């Protein structure tokens, strides 16, 4: 333990003596947060959805009523509910036609109103309309929130009738306004964690390249002790980065509804994974130049395939109970992003995102072990 604290102390000194690297690690994510807020806070976006209205209507005393049409009319003009997402509705004749359009990227989802919708509305029975949204599209949660609000408004028009969509409306936090900036919040927090890959891989490769690592190898400091000392220092740098980013997000007007401790646990687990990835990169690359290149590749991998900016391709690898494990589930950041999205926008509890938690715990253990072995076999031993 003394050796861990000894190495930790000197790692800390080395970290604070490189203020540029430390500053970039901690303040780049908040800077991007501020930048995104300026650019996207008041911007609008169009989201196209196919509409399959099969409602046959219902005969009432006065005239034939089409509640389905009323619902579509409400969805076609949502400016009074949300000024950020503009729904562009495209009528389709069949579900097959809608699926083809989704596949081609013409629309992002399907809203379907069943044939008996008006009948059930008139009979004061539970009427259901459905929507299917392409998972992973940008502003996914913004659209879901908007549709939910439409449903609530439609309920208020038909007082006394309970309409249900296939999502729980109570899952969404009650926000008066959902901006495009808000949809970037989980991604910005994920980015704060990803930055650690650079700082850790840089610190380790600098130590290897300076040759000073040889004195650590010659001492009785084990790879585990070295990783522990280094990780503690960079863990707190990562936490500081997450906190400053959270503070910037809060100051930009975003209201946090999810569990703060839940967010902290998710970020902490991913920070440990990011530190391990940094150690693996530095152990294999061994020079600062190669480490920088390798870290860039990893960063792009995380940004492109974690749902931060683009939809994640669903490439199924195996099934675990009810959960499908896809190829990109191997990236810890995909679970952080998904967990944060669920927490921040749907007030998800632990049970709702247990898959994300367990996946992160598993990946953290796996990556920590890989970090230890890569340091031991590629740095501690020459042959």
């Amino acid at each position, binding site marked *: 333990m*003394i*050796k861990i604290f*000894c*190495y930790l102390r*000197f790692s800390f*000194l*080395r970290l604070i*003596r*490189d203020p540029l690297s430390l500053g970039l690690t901690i303040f780049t994510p908040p800077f991007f947060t501020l930048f995104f807020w300026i650019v996207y806070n008041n911007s609008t976006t169009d989201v196209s959805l196919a509409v399959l209205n099969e409602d046959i209507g219902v005969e009432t005393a006065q005239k034939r009523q089409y509640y389905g049409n009323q619902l579509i009319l409400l969805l076609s003009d949502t400016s009074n509910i949300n000024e950020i997402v503009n729904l562009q509705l495209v009528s389709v004749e069949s579900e097959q036609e809608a699926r083809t359009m989704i596949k081609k990227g013409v629309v992002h989802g399907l809203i379907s109103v069943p044939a008996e919708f008006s009948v059930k509305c008139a009979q004061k029975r539970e009427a259901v309309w459905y929507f299917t949204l392409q998972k992973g599209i940008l502003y996914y949660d913004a659209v879901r929130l908007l549709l939910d609000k439409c449903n609530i408004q439609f309920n208020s028009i038909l007082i006394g009738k309970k309409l249900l969509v296939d999502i729980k409306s109570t899952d969404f936090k009650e926000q008066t306004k959902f901006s495009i900036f808000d949809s970037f919040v989980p991604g910005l927090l994920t980015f704060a964690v990803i930055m650690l890959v650079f700082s850790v891989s840089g610190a380790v490769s600098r*130590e290897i390249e*300076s*040759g*000073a*690592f*040889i*004195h*650590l*190898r*010659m*001492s*009785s*400091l084990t790879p585990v002790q070295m990783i522990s000392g280094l990780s503690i220092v960079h863990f707190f740098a990562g936490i500081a980065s997450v906190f400053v980013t959270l503070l910037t997000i809060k100051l930009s007007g975003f209201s946090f509804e999810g569990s703060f401790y839940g967010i902290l646990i998710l970020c902490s687990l991913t920070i440990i994974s990011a530190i391990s990835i940094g150690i693996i990169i530095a152990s294999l690359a061994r020079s600062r130049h190669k480490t920088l290149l390798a870290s860039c590749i990893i960063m792009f991998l995380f940004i492109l395939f974690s749902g931060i900016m683009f939809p994640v391709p669903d490439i199924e690898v195996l099934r675990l109970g009810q959960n499908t494990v896809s190829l990109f589930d191997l990236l810890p950041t995909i679970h952080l992003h998904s967990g944060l999205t669920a927490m921040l926008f749907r007030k998800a509890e632990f049970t709702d995102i247990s898959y994300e938690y367990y996946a992160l715990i598993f990946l953290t253990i796996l990556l920590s072990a890989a970090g230890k072995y890569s340091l031991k076999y590629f740095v501690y*031993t*020459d*042959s």
Partner: protein
Amino acid sequence: MDHFVYKIDSISKSFGALNVLKNVTLEIQSGSIVICIGVNGAGKTTFFKILCGLLKADSGSFYKKTAKSSQPSSVDVIGYCPQEISIWPDLTCREQMTMVARLNGMNASKSKEQVNGLLNRLQLTSKADTLASKLSGGMKRRLNLGLALVHEPEFCILDEPLDGVDLHGRKFIRDYINEISSQKKQTIIMSTHIMEEALYLNGIIVLFKNGEVIIFKSQNEFSDRISEDFLMEKAI
């Protein structure tokens, strides 16, 4: 300190088809100085790295024995001064020497005393709290040596410690090596390209040639062979 005999027993190492070391066998009494000489690429650094445990030998072993017991034991506390300057540029001289001492199990008060003493001995006291990146080349060399010796290892491996050090610096490093060997009974094995250094230090001389070693038990024997042009023409 107990008296040991360090045994280097038939160490061989090859890189592909190149046999760098061929059954190198050496016996070193504790507290003695061994000076390794040889042309570039003769295998001195490879030999040192194997002794340190940084490189695995293809065959052979390195161990120590006491006069009382025939049971071999491993050499645990080794100090290694690499040929290249290997220091932390963003730590001060005092900080990095303290870290190495503490990581090698020295307690806080003992390490403080040892670091101050060594800084003084290596004439680095005035630069003790200066970042290593700000030191001159010669000072960095001395710090490099200090990091190998700060934890008082029983067996010190110094790979060309005098390289790049001025005449004045060389003299006090030589004196210091002689001092720790005779007074503290630390065993020193070092390499050098400079013939005078080999003669000045009070130890046995080992010539590395084509992966094999030729041992000269004294400076006189070595000097005689030099006069026969043995080293000048065939080895060095």
